[in-house]
């Protein structure tokens, strides 16, 4: 409750029945097909799921960065703004201000022909509406890079992206996210190139942003150690749909969907000494030939006859816990 006595809007982002279809030579690819979730204020929300299931596409559509070969349906509400209806120009005003995204592939967000300092300067220019002095850029830039554990901050500011290591590029992007200080930060696999000591620091840094700036974040990660430390709730995606959603600890201790259960079993532990890793048989189906019924049926260890015919829908099975599986029919 705020001071006015009204209930404040408790979410910052609401995604409703989002669909993203790509037109390709081989036919239509339904990369995201009816995804709904919301992110609360100050919440860190995780998106996980098999490679190719539509996580990055979901994030790209929130940023409205998909190109013309795709069609977007559904609603994306950022506060009271309906982003699906926004023009490129309106979006540009949000990017780097209310919204910022750290991409999975560094070369999507870093400009290869610009030095790091110029890219950081660009962010400040956009945010503050005027260009900063060179000395200020260097000072602010160094401060940002040191926060993400980059040594030699002055030399890195003067380098081009291709002269940096994979993990340095990743951290430069995170530093740019810090400079932006958005209301909602989207991070697509932000720590894949960081060794465990640096990853540890970055995880603490991201948690600090939530506390210090009340920043909400959407974190796409396949590293459950990172999800465990960061995420309040997570959504598990499979072939363009959310199959389970709930608090991280709920999914860890009481996963309901057979896919979620399988996923947690595949995690390698620190002490494993086996010669063979636990897997889930099979892979994601081809998005060109999706089966009727549940997309996971072919790989499911507890498949029922109905699963082959009918697509299950999300039902509530506990507090903030939703599952789309015929084993849990309302």
């Amino acid at each position, binding site marked *: 409750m705020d001071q006015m006595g009204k209930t404040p809007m408790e979410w910052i982002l609401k995604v409703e029945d989002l669909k993203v279809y790509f037109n*390709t*030579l*081989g036919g239509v*690819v339904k990369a995201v097909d009816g995804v709904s979730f919301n992110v609360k204020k100050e919440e860190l929300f995780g998106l*996980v*799921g*098999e*490679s*190719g299931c539509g996580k*990055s596409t979901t994030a790209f559509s929130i940023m409205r960065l998909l190109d013309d070969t795709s069609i977007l349906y559904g609603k994306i509400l950022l506060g009271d703004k309906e982003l699906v209806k926004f023009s490129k120009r309106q979006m540009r005003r949000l990017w780097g201000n209310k919204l910022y995204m750290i991409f*999975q*592939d*560094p070369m*999507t967000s870093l400009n290869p022909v610009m030095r790091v300092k110029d890219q950081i300067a660009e962010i400040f220019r956009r945010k503050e509406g005027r260009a900063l002095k060179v000395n200020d850029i260097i000072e602010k830039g160094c401060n940002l890079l040191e926060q993400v554990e*980059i*040594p*030699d901050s002055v*030399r890195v500011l003067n*380098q081009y992206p291709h002269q940096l*290591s*994979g*993990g*340095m590029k*990743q*951290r430069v992007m995170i530093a740019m996210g810090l400079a932006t200080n958005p209301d909602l930060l989207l991070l697509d696999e932000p720590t*894949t*190139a960081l*060794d*465990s*000591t*640096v*990853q*540890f*620091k970055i995880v603490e840094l991201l948690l600090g942003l939530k506390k210090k700036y009340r920043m909400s974040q959407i974190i796409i990660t*396949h590293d459950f*150690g*990172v*999800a*465990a*430390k960061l995420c309040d709730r997570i959504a598990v995606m499979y072939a363009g749909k959310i199959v389970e959603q709930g608090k*991280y*600890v709920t999914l*860890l201790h009481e996963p309901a969907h057979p896919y979620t259960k*399988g*996923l*947690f079993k*595949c*995690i*390698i*532990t*620190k002490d*494993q000494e086996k*010669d*063979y890793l*636990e*897997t889930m048989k*099979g*892979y994601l189906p081809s998005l*060109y*030939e999706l089966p009727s019924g549940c997309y996971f049926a072919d790989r499911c260890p507890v498949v029922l006859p109905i699963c082959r015919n009918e697509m299950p829908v999300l039902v509530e099975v506990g507090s903030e816990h939703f599952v789309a599986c015929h084993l849990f029919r309302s």
Partner: protein
Amino acid sequence: MLSPFIEIVNLNKHYPLSLGIIDRFAGDVKTIKALNGINLNIFKGETLGLVGESGCGKSTLGRIVMGIETPTEGFVKVEGKRIDELKSKHEIKAIRKRIQMVFQNPASTLDPRMTLHQVLSEPFSIHYNLTRNELDKRIEGLLEKVGLHYGDRKKLSGEFSDGQKQRIALIRALSLEPEFIVADEPVSALDVSVQAQILNLMKQLQKEMHLTMLFISHDLKIVRFLSDRIAVIYLGKIVELGSTEVIFKNPCHPYTQGLLSSILDIDPGLTNHQFRIKADVPLSQLNIPEGCVFQMKCYSTNDRCKKESPELRELTRGHSVACFES
């Protein structure tokens, strides 16, 4: 004793850094000391895991081993022959077929306008003369191994997800059945279930094809699964080298200990503490000071660490550490 398949001898790599025309004019060219005196052997059939702080020179070392980049000093030998001394086109082509690299950033190594089929047929067309049918069969087989669909072969490589691109890069490197690969973070974009399947596949290749590998990864759990030996690098120097078992059970360098203690657990109820590493600013690669490369982050430094640089010395057979305290 067995002679090594790959021999890395006294390797240095320094990148010149010009901050601007004035510095260059004043002759004040600094260098980024990415690698400093690396000596390492990789034996036939062995997988050597390479771990270390982000930016410490792992990818640089991988590229030099492949002969894509030239070292400032030192050299690399493949089966006793220096790769920088190969002259004839024939020799170079032959070695190219036997050693392959999976690059760290798959998205930027695939041409986004080529179809999946074109990407995968390229290596075959350079080295073999296959009929269309044979080629399609090979490609189908490769795709199946990593969970991609033959139906996707007409898709442009830019139209795949990052984890799919990574798998494409991996099968392209494996398509010619190389004897040795440098795999630079080859599974970093994969979720745990696909990752487990790909790791099992790589394990199988190790066993059945006796694939030799330089395996670079920041994920110690994966490194443990695939590697026979592990080299830990810090600031361009090897600080610890030993069998996988010894590195995990008896890590002796404070940096290795820090790495192992920083692995995050999947249960948030179990609190992790990153101990053993100081929160100080890491050292600069531009002017590496005298003494140990790890001194700023180390809790057990003594006077000697600030003056002398510890050499890698053998503690027990096959286990070497560069630290005065161990």
